[in-house]
């Protein structure tokens, strides 16, 4: 902790309250993770009777053994990777140039285009027309349909556009004088300067894609193409419907609860691994030293 002697009495009080609140918030965020991990490692009986609070009760890997042998689990896991990586790359490919174009004063009809992009944040066609549209485009039950269908997000465009707008004009001008064309200005100057913003939208895309459930469920009939989230729902449904399964519950070390928890843990791990990798780009002051205002 910073040296508290530098704070006045009132400030000290404020700092302490702050720390308590931040601590509570951290716990509130962390606890569900701990709980799910504990449940996934507990026995079916313990999970069902609700005695798991913080640590596994009657610890066992039974739930994991159950899902890790299911080829559908691995297949949906792979699908989630395909949708996440493909979707994120597609998003960046579309969002970055769009944001750049919209940020340039020389774009003809700039206000109009910006309005059109923002418009999609307030109004959209709704579920049925969207589904019909995807059907007519032949994008139902298709990897490409999922990847392209949700690649452009107005919020991300506007976020990045604002960041591009905040980059002093002289960078663009210096690059132009140096002989760069529009594409090179974007690629060699604006993108490197926008790493924090691009990291942010990358994270948004990755998380949205990784957790993407609703549209995947609506648009994908083929079980070979469903992502992990849809697989999770399917398993929940199957396990709770399965009477045979319920009757053998007493003799079994896993239950619907523990299997679900295990799937959730498996689905969280890659995101947890991904975040530290991208975190270094969230540092501020990337423009430091380049210009002096």
């Amino acid at each position, binding site marked *: 902790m910073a040296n508290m002697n530098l704070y006045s009495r009132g400030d000290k009080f404020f700092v302490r309250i702050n720390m308590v609140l931040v601590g509570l918030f951290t716990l509130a965020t962390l606890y569900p993770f701990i709980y799910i991990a504990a449940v996934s490692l507990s026995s079916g009986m313990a999970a069902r009777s609700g005695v798991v609070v913080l640590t596994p009760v009657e610890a066992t890997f039974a739930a994991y053994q159950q899902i890790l042998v299911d080829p559908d689990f691995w297949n949906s896991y792979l699908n989630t990777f395909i949708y996440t990586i493909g979707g994120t790359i597609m998003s960046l490919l579309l969002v970055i140039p769009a944001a750049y174009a919209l940020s340039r004063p020389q774009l003809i009809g700039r206000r109009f285009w910006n309005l059109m992009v923002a418009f999609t944040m307030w109004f959209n066609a709704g579920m049925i027309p969207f589904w019909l549209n995807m059907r007519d485009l032949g994008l139902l039950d298709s990897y490409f349909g999922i990847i392209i269908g949700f690649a452009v997000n107005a919020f991300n465009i506007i976020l990045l556009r604002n960041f591009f707008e905040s980059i002093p004009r002289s*960078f663009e001008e210096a690059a132009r004088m140096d002989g760069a064309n529009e594409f090179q200005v974007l690629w060699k100057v604006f993108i490197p300067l926008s790493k924090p913003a691009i990291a942010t939208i990358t994270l948004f895309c990755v998380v949205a894609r990784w957790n993407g459930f609703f549209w995947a469920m609506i648009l994908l009939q083929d079980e070979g193409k469903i992502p992990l989230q849809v697989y999770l729902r399917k398993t929940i449904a199957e396990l709770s419907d399965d009477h045979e399964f319920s009757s053998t519950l007493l003799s079994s070390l896993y239950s619907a609860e523990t299997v679900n928890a295990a799937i959730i843990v498996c689905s969280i791990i890659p995101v947890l691994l991904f975040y530290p990798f991208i975190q270094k780009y969230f540092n501020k002051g990337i423009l430091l030293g380049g210009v002096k205002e």
Partner: protein
Amino acid sequence: MSGVTLEKIVKSYGKIEVVHGIDLVVAEKEFVVLVGPSGCGKSTTLRMVAGLEEISAGRITIDDRVVNEVAPKDRDVAMVFQNYALYPHLNVKENIAFGLRIRKESKANIEKQVAEVAEILGLTEYLERRPADLSGGQRQRVAMGRAIVRHPKVFLFDEPLSNLDAKLRTQMRAEIKRLHKRLGVTSIYVTHDQVEAMTLADRIVVMCDGRIEQVGTPMDLFNHPKNLFVASFIGSPPMNQIQAEVEASGDKLFAKFGAHRLELPMLHELGANDHGRKVTLGIRPEHIMTQADPDTDAIEVELDLIETLGSEALLHTTVMGKPFVVKTETRGDLSHLENVRALHFKPDMLKVFDGVNGDVFDHPERLK
């Protein structure tokens, strides 16, 4: 000839015209400084030469080629920006090499050129550093290195020193001058600082409100300002001004103000029939004497303040209710200055300006 010619250059933003038809010829290897108060259109003019702003009307020629429709990168000019615009994600070497890389020069050639430029600018030790880890002066040098390395036909500078502290500014000013001597590249330099203009320029272009007031060598502008604006802009401290009335008496003309009367120099454009005409007297602080001399007129003043600069001192007085500054030598001692009660003027040292439009009388260009 790699000079730059501006013919009747106009710039409008929408309906607002900010540059009103500028004519200027910059000779090959010349160092021309555009100077004027903030907002007078210097940057706009420079940026039109660079190709960063469209030209609303008129013609710009670089090296005998009309460049109105030529993209910045194809004009063969390089620009140093006020805020440097160094690429923060690249180190010094990569910053300097950026333009060469874009132009797909060979690796060996890039290495050689960058090393050469770094040597000239004293950046050799810093090639691996990022801009954030450089001092202001070093960043400034990198910005220049980026311009030099391309061997452009013309250098354009937009207030390159205005972000440096006074000492560094003086130092970099000298460096720019040396660099220009060494490389001999045609340069156009924008500043609002008349000292920079005076020290750097082969020729100065004084601008005001989107127009050129006067073009000339630093000494030309200092000795023969065309009007009050130029007279008050060039020189530091600025020229003193006194509102006065012409009085013809015998075959001589005098300027009358308050209870004072000063003899005016002989002028072709001012005569006995100008009796009663309003004029403005312009007197440079360094042209006023604190001691009587055979052919001087004197006015009595009270000293408000003495500012010492070392070998010189500024005497602050008040004439006709306005500040009036005298620059004089101290000869290492202030005591003789503290007793100054009168200022002495030689007629030859007075500039006389029209009281209405501010034009100087007897400007040598008009008399020819």
